[in-house]
């Protein structure tokens, strides 16, 4: 137990943290899914969560935008702050929180509407633009940032579900960045994609880093090493080790991390 606290205190980063978590515990009914996780996520960088299946990395990701609230049996304790603001503050509106913290899911899940509607939904909902022209500008900007504009600019009224898997996932990213969030949570965004589409997305993540704080959950060690600046390793609900990606992959402090990275388990 003490070791984990040590871990986190040791790894406080120099830049101002965007997301800070302290002693976060998550219970699914009787199951203790996440144990005393404390971590700081630096601003404008990519942090990767790695670990074997069921280690709690996705659960923790979903704590950050309080997506776990939608699961009735789920209970979260501890403190998570985004920009020094407690996200469990009863005065804080969870819907506004989610608008500030975008999310990209494992399986591409565009709305079964037109590409334009998919991207424009969030801005319209939050009143970021009222006129059609403003919305058009946001849609173009978001799709350009997501690297999809060139491919779909002539068929914005086509259904979003008609795109290929990789395009759908980029559409979902465009939808997430259309509301200009501060943090983007990505839950294994490439697990349903082929290598070429994956490369596209990874390139995109690298671009987006300059503007957004990105937290990505991935099963692929290569992906983590390619796209992230910092990496956190989870195991059995514990945060085992967190550090710069280079350090984690070349010189991990913990043997469990070492074993996982070298493929001895998981």
């Amino acid at each position: 137990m003490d070791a984990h606290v040590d871990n986190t205190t040791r790894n406080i980063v120099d830049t101002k943290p965007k997301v800070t978590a302290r002693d976060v515990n998550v219970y699914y009914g009787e199951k203790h899914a996440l144990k005393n996780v404390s971590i700081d996520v630096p601003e404008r960088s990519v942090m990767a969560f790695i670990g074997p299946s069921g280690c709690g990395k996705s659960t923790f990701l979903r704590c950050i935008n309080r997506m776990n609230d939608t699961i009735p049996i789920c209970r979260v304790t501890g403190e998570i702050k985004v920009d020094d603001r407690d996200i469990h503050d009863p005065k804080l509106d969870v819907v506004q929180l989610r608008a500030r913290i975008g999310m990209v899911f494992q399986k591409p899940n565009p709305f079964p509407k037109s590409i334009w509607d998919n991207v424009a939904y969030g801005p319209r909902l939050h009143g970021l633009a009222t006129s059609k022209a403003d919305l058009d500008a946001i849609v173009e900007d978001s799709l350009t940032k997501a690297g999809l504009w060139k491919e779909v600019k002539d068929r914005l009224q086509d259904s979003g579900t008609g795109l290929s898997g990789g395009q759908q996932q980029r559409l979902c990213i465009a939808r997430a960045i259309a509301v200009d969030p501060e943090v983007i949570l990505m839950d294994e965004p490439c697990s349903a994609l082929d290598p070429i589409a994956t490369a596209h997305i990874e390139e995109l993540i690298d671009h987006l880093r300059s503007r957004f704080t990105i937290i990505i959950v991935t099963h692929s060690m290569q992906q983590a090493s390619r796209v992230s600046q910092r990496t956190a390793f989870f195991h059995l609900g514990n945060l085992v080790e967190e550090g710069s990606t280079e350090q984690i992959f070349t010189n991990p402090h913990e043997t469990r991390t070492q074993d996982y990275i070298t493929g001895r388990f998981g």
Partner: protein
Amino acid sequence: MTDATMMDVAPTRRIDFDSAAAQNRVKARYRAEARFRAYGIAALVVTTLFLVMLLGDVLIKGLPAFWQHSLTLEVSVAAADVDPQGTGRPEVLRAGDYTAIVRRTLSDRFPEAKSRQDRKLLFGLLSSGATDVLRDRVVADPSLVGKTVRVPVLLSDDVDLYFKGASTKIVDRAGRGILTASAATGEITVSSTSNDFADELVAIKKSVKVRADAMSTEADRLAAVVHDMAADIETVEKSLAAARSSGDAAAVERAEKDVANRRTDLAAMQAKVTENRDAARELTRRFDDPKTPETLDASLPSLLVAMNGGLVKITRLGDVSFQGRVLLPLKSTADAAAGSWKLVTYQTPEANRRVTDQEIAWLEALRADGVVTNAFNTAFFTTGDSREAELAGIRGALVGTALTLLVTLAICLPLGVAAAIYLEEFAPKNRVTDLIEVNINNLAAVPSIVFGLLGLAVFLNFFDLPRSAPVVGGLVLALLVMPTIIIASRAALKAVPPSIKEAALGVGASHQQAIFHHVLPLALPGIMTGTIIGMAHALGETAPLLMIGMVAFIVDVPGSITEAATVLPVQIYLWSDLPEVAFQSKTAAAIIVLLGFLFVMNGTAIWLRKKFERRW
């Protein structure tokens, strides 16, 4: 690793597909599959057969009801009948005596129908609503008074059925001899120079023989009964003798009474036997003598002779001559040459039809005049119910159904969908909601008559809503359909993948926004399908409506949801109960209309499902 080495290592569990046992297993599997396929096809064939039989029966019975026969008559609208004062006011014109006008036209066509009975018969050809069209026209256009108008005059249901071929088959053949009639009207005697009627006479005599045989069989049966009765009397007499010898006065008296009663019965029975035997003997005698004229009665096919422009019904037939009654007067009593006259047979005996020979004679004469028209029965769709089959329509029932279903839809769609959304998306999952859920499912299985009783107790007796009204019918049906709609809507909501909702939540939509913006629109086709199927269910429902008084005989087309009305299935139920033959056809026609609506509704549901079906 090669097969050879595998065999060496572990040969024990390897299946030998060439062995007889394995081949038998394969064959058995093939047989089982073929059998199963055969069962499936057989089930399908039987089902299709039943369906085709049902639909075919309904169509064959019902389709003729969509057409109706009427007379197109030239009637002169006399001012004396409709507007003696010449006011030209609609209410005066509406009260005019149009029946007299039409009847006069008909009397002019058949002047021979002078007796009260004949005239009653003649006017009976017309429907009691025969003059409706004429009245409407004259009221709409008062300038018609004093003019001759060509109008359709509705015929009675029996006449309509006659023209539809339901009554009797008519065959005729040309005569060979020269006919001489004794008179042009009334009871006449007609003789031929040839034995033209010998064949018919033989046929009649054959039927006489059949009756004779039947009577003698009956006589034999009765004779056997007489024999048994005589034996019984002997037994009783023996017990009487025994009683006498024992001196039991009471027993003697009882036995004597018994014997006397039995003797009376025996005598009556013996008389019956004799009667039957005599009748049989008489009939046989008639059969044996081919020349004796035969009297035709209503139980035999009717024979008629069409000669000299008239029609004579044969009452007593010989082989070269007959006595008959003139149904349509002959134009002359001159001799009718061979081939110029016809022997006509109405094959169904008069006793078995609803139109008499005289009526058929008139109707055929009218048909020959070319005034009988068969037109699409628009009145069936534009009038309400009636006691007269030819006037009865389904407009009232259709409007009643529409109003009732509107009330049902207005109540159960918003309530049902709202309940489904709340239960599926918002309600906490606990004991209370579990209980509600179980009870909704139970409600879907409650017999519909129970909802009718509930409606009677709550809406009529407690809330004092009007009886027989679509508003109550709609409320009851809404209760009936609500569980169906809730269950279908919940299933549709559940079928929307949660990833859609998560995506919406992820971009910062609230729970409610996510549901109303994304989940509900995607579930809507499913909800619509469920609703339409529920409404189709309500459309065909009868039992609960009987309980709230929608089973009344209502002529007027309802104008609002609080007026008395009936609905299509109840109308079918009411008509199916009526004895008139024409109503059977109306019943089937109404069923066709109901089925048509059901097909359209279910078709719409399928179309919606196909059109908006999505795959994720």
